[in-house]
């Protein structure tokens, strides 16, 4: 009786590719050559998309931009495991997975250029609007996952995104606990890029990882090398299988690194050292996967050049379309507040309309 162990827990970390792109063959996911290459393509497309946004921002043609550089493996590894019927509840740093899901680049650009119309995603793309209050969207994912369960869905799941900083907010806790209790069809997908603006992860929490928190909610959790797209692929597959099978939620932590400033409004040189960035540059998810593909003879310079050209052309076309779009009318400020405009918005709309004339 006296001292008993009431709970024991282990938290695992998965890695497949080392930083030079050498794989642990035993763990290699069963993917076709084309699928392997596709993971790489998605990442390169994300990076070009992201780089262009940073350029536009410097030129005053974009609003505040939060770069995903360094996190492409997380987002590509997840994206290819998603089904059309799945739902996303993105934070503000999910551009990669969003454009991989069929949201046109120009719409994501539009959001960050300051245009709500970017949020009107194409019909059939199950993606909530970008959520900026950190961690808050995890509850939407918990609720959506419960809704899918109540609807008797057998495949669809909801994916809630958040960062390491978000893991300190109360909503993170409430979302995981709620999903645990109701066995929501929810994957909690945490990109721990080790910084929350200027706060390093070790000051964010005294815990060694975010993944280990899963045990406090009665759900499985796992950490994965978030700069290793094959590991992310394998881990998300495992996690999604668990959720799709109706076993309740899953917490997946991708350990990655934010290569850029927090956003273009930030200056990371104030709080972190170049050394650290250099260290992580050597662990770049794209370089690593390219090395792997090349070593497997699945990739070469020619393919690289063609891919670069293809995504560059896409990006340019999207920017052109973006910039061709005239501003929304000022009356849009009041026109989406309610299904029907109450009298005071009718009055306020008249002012906006008058000023526009």
């Amino acid at each position, binding site marked *: 009786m006296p001292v008993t162990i009431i709970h024991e827990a282990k938290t695992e970390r998965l890695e497949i590719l080392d930083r030079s792109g050498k794989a642990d063959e035993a763990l290699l996911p069963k993917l076709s050559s084309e699928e392997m290459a596709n993971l790489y393509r998605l990442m390169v497309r994300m990076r070009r998309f992201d780089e262009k946004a940073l350029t536009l921002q410097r030129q005053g043609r974009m609003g505040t931009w939060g770069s995903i550089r360094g996190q492409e493996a997380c987002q590509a590894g997840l994206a290819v495991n998603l089904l059309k019927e799945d739902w996303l509840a993105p934070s503000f740093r999910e551009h990669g997975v969003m454009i991989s899901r069929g949201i046109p680049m120009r719409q994501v650009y539009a959001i960050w250029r300051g245009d709500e119309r970017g949020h009107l995603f194409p019909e059939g793309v199950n993606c909530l*609007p970008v959520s900026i209050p950190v961690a808050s969207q995890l509850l*939407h*994912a918990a609720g959506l996952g419960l809704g899918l369960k109540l609807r008797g869905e057998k495949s669809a799941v*909801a994916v809630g995104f958040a960062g390491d900083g978000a893991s300190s907010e109360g909503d993170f806790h409430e979302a995981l606990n709620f999903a645990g209790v109701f066995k929501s069809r929810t994957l909690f997908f945490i990109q721990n890029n080790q910084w929350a603006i200027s706060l390093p992860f070790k000051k964010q929490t005294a815990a060694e990882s975010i993944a280990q928190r899963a045990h406090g909610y009665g759900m499985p959790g796992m950490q994965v090398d978030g700069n290793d797209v094959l590991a992310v692929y394998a881990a998300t597959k495992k996690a999604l299988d668990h959720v799709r099978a109706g076993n309740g939620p899953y917490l997946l932590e991708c350990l990655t690194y934010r290569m850029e400033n927090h956003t273009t409004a930030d200056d990371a040189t104030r709080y972190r050292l170049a050394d650290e960035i250099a260290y992580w540059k050597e662990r770049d998810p794209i370089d690593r996967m390219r090395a792997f593909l090349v070593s497997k003879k699945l990739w070469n310079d020619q393919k690289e050049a063609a891919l670069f050209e293809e995504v560059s052309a896409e990006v340019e076309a999207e920017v052109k379309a973006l910039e061709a779009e005239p501003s929304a009318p000022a009356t849009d400020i009041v026109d989406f507040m309610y*299904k029907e405009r109450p009298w005071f918005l009718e009055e306020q709309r008249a002012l906006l309309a008058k000023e526009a004339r």
Partner: protein
Amino acid sequence: MAAQRDGRTDKSEKLTLAQAVNHGLAQEMERDPNVLVMGEDVGVDGGVFRVTEGLMEKFGPDRVMDTPLAESAIVGAAIGLAVAGFRPVCEIQFTGFVYPALNQLFAHVARYRNRSRGRYPLPMVIRMPYGGGIHPPEHHSESYEALFAHTPGLKVVIPSTPSDAKGLITAAIRDDDPVIFMEPKRIYRAFREDVSSLEYTVPIGEAKIVSEGKDVTIIAYGAMVRVALEAQEALSRQNVLAEVIDLRTINPMDIKTVLGSAEKTGRVVVVHEAPRNAGLGAEIAALIQERAMLSLLAPIQRVCGFDSVFPFPRLEEHYLPTKERVMEAVQKTLDF
């Protein structure tokens, strides 16, 4: 009592306000399988005020969900459920415990339709008992309607009678925008009224003149309507004929009814339990002076809670607006 209405038999019943909300909820859950009820103790226990009594037995635990003790989760998860096509009716156990949910309410619920350019409206209701009068511990008597009224994107409804309560909760559930539904707990069981057994709505955004008069307008809502009516009655014995308006919806406010009455009487007293500073009374006064100043025979008076914390029970009676304070304010408008 049974009557025929549109070919349906109306077995109206004498109900309390709490029961009337319960009937409205049950009827809407019956009618629309997407309506869900969720919150703390709403299921097995039937709600701490029994407003959700019997719903779990009737509709099962998938439609009436006892949630963990977490207000942000209740509202936040309801957003996800609404996107998934449900119409969640959340209960917050007391208005004083809604603060942990304000991030979800202000940052998301109020904004989702707008943010998504109309793609994701959130047809949800957030019910909460509010106001004083039951001598409970701290935080159980709060009246924070002004916070919600100040937040664009929300509608705010406050019934004051059982029959309105049923019609308004029905309208709130059917509304495609989020509705904050505040229930005056002081009169949950204070009186009964004939309430139709049929489905019906009371339109959101329409006030009601509960007593016609010509000398002064008293504007109130929730439990304060009864206080206003007490004052009206006492005043009538002094030959002062007060018109009493029950706002019923705080936002959008029924400006026509309010202005019409103010123009008629020229004197206005607003009554609410919430603190005065930046409360609803200020908005009402500001609107009336802006749009009917020339009709005003006296400054608009506010009879409100004090700008203090709602006191513990032993001083509670001194906090709440009384008939006497309303009468005094009316007298001020007459003496001006």
